[in-house]
């Protein structure tokens, strides 16, 4: 993806050149250093990615490029040149002109970047009106801009309000606005985080095509390394306010030359790794707090290779290839970083069925309309097994989990059986014994923990209610739990906001395990966390499972994670089961066309799948599901006259592998093998 005919390589000709940037935030009057000499440049037409854990300064760098800093942020020294002009010494007026004409930014959440009370047409036209066009011209330009981001029917979209558009469409509109001024620099700050994998693929495709049409320099920030790999020419790895490694994206991901990069990449379940094969690597420790003086190597406290040299002097930029450098004293010793050890873990070996859902449906009623969110679900979960649940948002994954937990009472007719006895539909009507058997780990630990309570109170209350013990016995249980979750006793008297994201999630997991549950529902437990923390949490979940032989219902949109952890997988679409099988069956095929599309949508750190199947359009409204096969409106193997008329039966193509599709296996097998 290297662009040809780039501008000559001098500081002033770069679309963006950041030179030795030092930046500090004043916290209670004390300046704390966030960026410690960041230098990089992006040429016109080039895409440059910044990666690193949250708090490493990548967003600050991006905002600084537009000199858009909070009131307590000060540029201490250094220069930021955009198209040769120094942003750091512009007056307010020049800065406004610069932001209107030379640079644009696209944010994480398109929903909040658009004004909810203005029609799309007016908002996009506004971007052109600023450039001096009159009303009619601006409207025409707006239509053209929307067409440019591949919106087929701009006139109609312009008449709509933001909430009437899907997330993918909203992000297209935002990108159209960002491109209005033909910027020299386009900053994308986590542009696809929070979007479904299929929508993400759609947006990324768009950005990729647009790259060939503009000569804007792109600065991309994403915590998803797969996105960076698939989009960027070059990548800079940031740690504690410094770029520790920079180079060609492929080279950095394939042959990282800095211990931190090596660690980050090893945190990911790559190349189809499974929990039975190896534990995930974790980087010990956490990012130093902003403002900590780090006179030597910034990574020294967490580096396994650190020695006296590292503690004594700051490493220089060591060239390790063409345009590839690493800020490390020990580039030659990288092979000494220990591989994570393969751990013996028992995976769900055909044990006894613990929980069984038989023909469970859930219909919501809203304004007199019935909305079937879950239709005729059958599933069983054996002891110590992990069942992965995948599908786009709106496919009914969470509804299924909540029906099992008794948060949503299923429709009459369905049965949920724990061991052999029937469970009440509502959690409140279940016996304590049944309640403690099924617990949940939520996606967002901030929302899952009571902010007003200390960790001790959260855990002790749960132990009292679920384990049914108090006093000394409860304290013993508490100690066992904190040990198992690797929480220190000191954390017990803290409140959630004093803990980092990873620690909060550990407390939430400890709470779920407080009453020795048989089944734990994990609803995207790591999606709000950094990769290094995600690895630790996944290892922990895997350890707990092998010691307690708990079953997991594991919901995730990250197929790499599901593949790593799950023994079996269920693919859902519009509240219906589409495919079910062991992890190998699901990933190796033959696939349901929907699974096929899901698998090919995911950008991966290991490179692109050989062939891409793009899902177009949005998931239909469950209130009004398509006739026949519910997936036929988006299916790339759609057969007219069959799929839109008859609902396909569920066919068991091999033991335990069921697919709901009209196509014969021979046909389904003729699919490109897709790697995740």
């Amino acid at each position: 993806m290297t662009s040809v005919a780039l501008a000559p390589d001098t500081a002033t000709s770069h679309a963006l050149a950041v030179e030795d940037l030092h930046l500090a935030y004043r916290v209670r009057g004390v300046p704390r250093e966030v960026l410690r000499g960041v230098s990089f440049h992006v040429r016109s037409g080039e895409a440059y990615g910044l990666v690193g854990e949250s708090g490493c300064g990548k967003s600050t760098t991006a905002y600084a490029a537009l000199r858009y800093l909070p009131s307590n942020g000060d540029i201490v020294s250094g220069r930021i040149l955009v198209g040769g002009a120094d942003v750091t010494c512009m007056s307010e007026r020049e800065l406004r002109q610069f932001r209107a004409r030379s640079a644009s930014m696209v944010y994480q959440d398109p929903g909040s970047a658009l004004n909810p009370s203005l029609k799309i047409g007016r908002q996009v036209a506004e971007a052109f009106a600023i450039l001096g066009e009159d009303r009619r011209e601006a409207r025409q330009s707006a239509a053209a801009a929307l067409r440019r981001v591949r919106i087929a029917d701009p006139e109609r979209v312009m008449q709509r309000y933001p909430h009437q558009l899907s997330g993918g469409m909203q992000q297209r509109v935002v990108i159209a606005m960002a491109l209005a001024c033909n910027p020299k620099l386009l900053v994308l700050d986590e542009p696809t985080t929070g979007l479904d994998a299929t929508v993400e693929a759609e947006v990324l495709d768009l950005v990729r095509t647009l790259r060939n049409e503009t000569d804007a320099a792109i600065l991309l920030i994403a915590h998803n390394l797969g996105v960076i790999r698939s989009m960027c020419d070059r990548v800079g790895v940031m740690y504690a306010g410094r770029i520790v490694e920079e180079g060609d994206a492929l080279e950095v991901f394939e042959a990282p030359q800095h211990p931190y990069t090596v660690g980050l990449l090893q945190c990911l379940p790559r190349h189809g790794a499974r929990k039975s094969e190896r534990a995930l690597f974790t980087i010990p420790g956490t990012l130093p707090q902003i403002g900590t003086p780090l006179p030597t190597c910034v990574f020294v406290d967490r580096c396994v290779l650190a020695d006296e040299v590292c503690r004594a002097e700051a490493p220089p930029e060591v060239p390790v290839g063409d345009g590839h450098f690493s800020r490390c004293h020990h580039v030659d010793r990288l092979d000494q970083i220990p591989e994570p050890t393969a751990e013996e873990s028992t995976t769900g070996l055909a044990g006894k069925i613990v929980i069984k859902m038989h023909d469970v449906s859930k219909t919501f009623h809203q304004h007199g309309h019935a909305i079937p969110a879950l239709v005729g679900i059958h599933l069983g979960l054996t002891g110590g097994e992990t069942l992965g649940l995948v599908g786009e948002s709106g496919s009914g994954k969470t509804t299924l989990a909540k029906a099992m937990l008794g948060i949503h009472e299923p429709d009459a007719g369905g049965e949920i059986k724990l061991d052999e006895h029937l469970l009440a539909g509502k959690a409140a009507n279940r016996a304590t014994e049944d309640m403690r058997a099924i617990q949940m780990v939520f996606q967002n630990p901030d929302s899952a923990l009571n902010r007003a309570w200390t960790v001790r109170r959260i855990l002790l209350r749960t132990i009292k209610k679920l384990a049914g013990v108090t006093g000394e016995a409860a304290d013993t249980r508490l100690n066992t739990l904190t040990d198992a979750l690797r929480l220190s006793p000191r954390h017990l008297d803290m409140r959630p906001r004093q803990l980092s994201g990873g620690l909060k999630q550990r407390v939430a997991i400890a709470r779920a395990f407080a009453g020795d549950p048989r089944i734990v529902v994990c609803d995207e437990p790591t999606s709000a966390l950094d990769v290094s923390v995600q690895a630790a949490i996944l290892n922990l979940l895997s350890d707990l499972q092998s010691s307690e032989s708990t079953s997991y219902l594991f919901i995730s949109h990250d197929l790499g994670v599901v593949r790593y952890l799950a023994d079996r997988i269920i693919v859902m679409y519009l509240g219906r089961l589409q495919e079910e099988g062991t992890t190998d069956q699901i990933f190796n095929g033959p696939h349901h066309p929907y699974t096929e599309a899901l698998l090919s949508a995911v950008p991966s750190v290991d490179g692109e799948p050989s062939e891409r199947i793009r899902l177009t359009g949005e998931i239909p409204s469950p209130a009004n599901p398509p006739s026949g096969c519910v997936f036929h409106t988006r299916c790339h193997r759609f057969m007219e006259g069959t799929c839109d008329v008859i609902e396909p039966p569920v066919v068991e193509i091999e033991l335990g592998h069921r697919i709901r599709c009209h196509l014969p296996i021979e046909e389904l097998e003729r699919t490109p093998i897709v790697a995740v």
Partner: protein
Amino acid sequence: MNLPLPDPSTVSGLLETEAEAAVVDAPVAGSPGGTPPVDMRAERRQARRERMRLLLRRPGFIVGSALLLFWLVCAIGGDRITPFDPINDFELPNTRPGADHVMGTDQLGRDVLSRVMAGARDVLIAAPAAAVVSVAVGTFLGLLMGYYRGWIDEVLGRIIEALLSIPVVLVGLLIVSSLGASRIVVAGAVAVLFTPIVTRTVRAAVIAEAQLDYITSARLRGESGLFVMTREILPNVSGAIVVEFTVRIGYAVFTIATLTFLGAGIQPPSPDWGLQISDTYRLIQAGHWWPTLFPAMAIASLVIATNLVADSIETVSAA
């Protein structure tokens, strides 16, 4: 700028909390178990001191609390600290403000300054009392409505809407005239008037809170509704309740003055401010503005003072 940029203040706020989290978190991960235990009480004391420091930095808070303190001293001191007896000391009537009587005298010859100072007592008892009652009842109802929703919310919601649609003064007058005029009845009337408003605020806060996952988690371990409302939700909405309380005191001062002005509240010869204004406002045409203006200013200063304090507390607790 062709795109809306996020509010920089939130960006900086985020950074500060992240930094705090990192402070606590860092040592643990670096050297597991080897760090000395932090004295949590000292830490909380530190946090309280920090909040106080932030408050004292705000000019609004200083001015507001100075004014409040002044009126408190007046209310507690009563006729022991006023230059003249506010009720029974009849001097020369309608004296202009001057050296003897800084704020002049009223039509009966009573010293206006003394009456304004002494008048703080009634209102400073009745207004907080009304606020306490309305906040207590409003919190209870707001918790019920916001947590259970459903028919409770429907029914109470309609009643509240109905109450809010009747003009405040009318309801007040109705209550006071049917139950008789006394300090307690006035405070009670104001409490009744304010309860629906407090309920609405608390309900909104509770609804937002009840959607969070920790409430689901509480249900999954079989907690009772009462427990969830009082132990789980209440501490998390207490900030909103404190702010509502301070704001309500300000409005209560105002409403009580209005009711007494209309003759439906505290009765003469009490030096209540509203009463003073209603006794003297007709004299403005005769050029005697001082017995009306000074109690009016007293009302304004007290309302503004409570609002300044409320505003500062809200800002600091939100940061």
